[in-house]
């Protein structure tokens, strides 16, 4: 085994200027703590450590998660990669050894070290590494590995500092995992709710799922942020959740609705918003649920909003909801073909639909109609 230098933290804290640098680093660590995005956290960490140790790449492998996140330095930023099925924490790998040692572990010369290394190590030409265990109290969370392309010396002080920052990172990662796990749990419940509505109505089964996927594809063409895509995912999955409050006899009526019955159906966006109002992480999705039946010309419901008064994500949802609804069978009509539906969308530009969003959707139409096998009308 070619492990060089395992350091005890207390013996290696720097003095003087270096102490100021550490204070500055801990300050930067606040950014790490506040980030919920693990990739961003790792990037912050990579930047923060650069004044203390050469960082050609940094990777994060968490216990119990199959993927390893690798960030490889490219000039002033990092290029990221996900390694599926990473083995750096399997038995007798360098990661496991570092975790068990409980301190940052330097491998000065990868070429002569007695471990198997992932394929990216030789691909990227890494010569040395520092494996930093992440622990929160007694809990072993995983390791962060700093890779160096040159066998540069890594000082005792650098390793001590890396330890300090690792504990901050461990807290950040744990926090972010907890938040994401909570959200995932809540969202599974919420997806179950959406599925429950659809279970009672075979005509709409899979509708929310398809609308959500189409909506994400369409919204991405406008360069929306990850946060907005997440909001859209929640909103589109739940856009019809209000139908749970609507009498089934009306929802599944095989004939034309009376004016009164239509007024009842028109309540579903407001009912839906009311349902998700109580759920903290779904607040950003309320506009999508409430406004997905607004029309660009102001003649929609519930609020009669017009053009850009209608939230952008709701305008996106509106087009894809319409497309999926018309290309599906309903109790009162057969599905229209993709071509016919596309024609209706074209005719609805400016009246029902936002022209820019609808046009972007129509760009997708050759691919849709070429492959559609839905019954023609």
């Amino acid at each position: 085994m070619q492990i060089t230098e395992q350091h005890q933290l207390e013996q290696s804290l720097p003095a003087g200027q270096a102490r100021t640098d550490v204070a500055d680093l801990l300050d930067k660590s606040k950014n790490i703590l506040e980030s919920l995005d693990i990739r961003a956290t790792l990037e912050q960490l990579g930047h923060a450590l650069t004044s203390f140790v050469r960082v050609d790449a940094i990777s994060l492998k968490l216990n119990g998660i199959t993927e390893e996140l690798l960030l490889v330095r490219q000039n002033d930023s990092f290029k990221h990669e996900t390694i599926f099925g990473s083995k750096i924490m399997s038995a007798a790998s360098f990661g496991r050894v570092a975790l068990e040692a409980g301190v940052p572990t330097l491998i000065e010369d990868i070429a002569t070290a007695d471990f198997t290394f992932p394929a990216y190590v030789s691909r990227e030409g890494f010569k040395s590494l520092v494996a930093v265990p992440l622990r929160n109290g007694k809990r072993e969370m995983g390791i962060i590995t700093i890779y160096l392309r040159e066998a540069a010396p890594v000082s005792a002080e650098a390793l001590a500092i890396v330890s300090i920052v690792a504990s901050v990172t461990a807290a950040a990662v744990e926090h972010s995992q907890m938040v994401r796990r909570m959200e995932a749990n809540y969202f599974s419940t919420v997806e179950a709710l959406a599925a429950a509505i659809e279970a009672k109505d075979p005509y709409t089964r899979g509708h929310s799922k398809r609308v959500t996927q189409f909506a994400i594809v369409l919204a991405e063409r406008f360069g929306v942020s990850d946060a907005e895509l997440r909001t859209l995912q929640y909103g589109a999955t739940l856009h019809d959740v209000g139908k749970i409050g609507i009498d089934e006899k009306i929802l599944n009526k095989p004939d034309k609705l009376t004016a009164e019955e239509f007024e009842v159906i028109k309540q579903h966006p407001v009912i839906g918003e009311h349902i998700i109002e109580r759920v903290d992480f779904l607040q950003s999705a309320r506009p999508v649920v409430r406004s997905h039946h607004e029309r660009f010309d102001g003649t929609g419901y519930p609020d009669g909003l017009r053009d850009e008064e209608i939230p952008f994500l709701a305008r996106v949802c509106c087009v894809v909801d319409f497309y999926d609804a018309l290309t599906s069978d309903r109790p009162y009509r057969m599905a229209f073909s993709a071509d016919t539906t596309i024609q209706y969308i074209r005719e609805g530009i400016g009246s029902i639909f936002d022209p820019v969003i609808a046009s972007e959707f129509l760009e997708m139409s050759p691919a849709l109609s070429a492959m559609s096998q839905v019954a023609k009308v």
Partner: protein
Amino acid sequence: MSRGKVLVVDDEEYIQHILNFSFGAEGYDVVTAGDGEEGIRKAKSEKPDIIVLDIMMPKMDGYEACRRLKTDPHTKNIPVILLTAKGREVDRKLGSQAGADDYMVKPFSPGRLIERVEGMMKR
């Protein structure tokens, strides 16, 4: 000039449509299959550069199709990305054990998927 050929294996048409569009827009050719058996047949006949594979499919599921693709000398070197609604850690582990090269959950962002595909094709 095509950037490569993608084989999409998914029983749901709307996913085939979306991937046909998203990959097509980036200059890739797309061929499709509706279940695991057809997926393996097309992997051999079409020789794609990458396979996007759903898990929940009739006749043969994605795990089984992946295992077979990865043990057959004609197809074992084609990278496989599992694209599936099943996103729990246990599902990912099963995917890794079946020999998949990557894993993405639906609903997916086409941009992210294409990023991963491009990364895999470079190697």
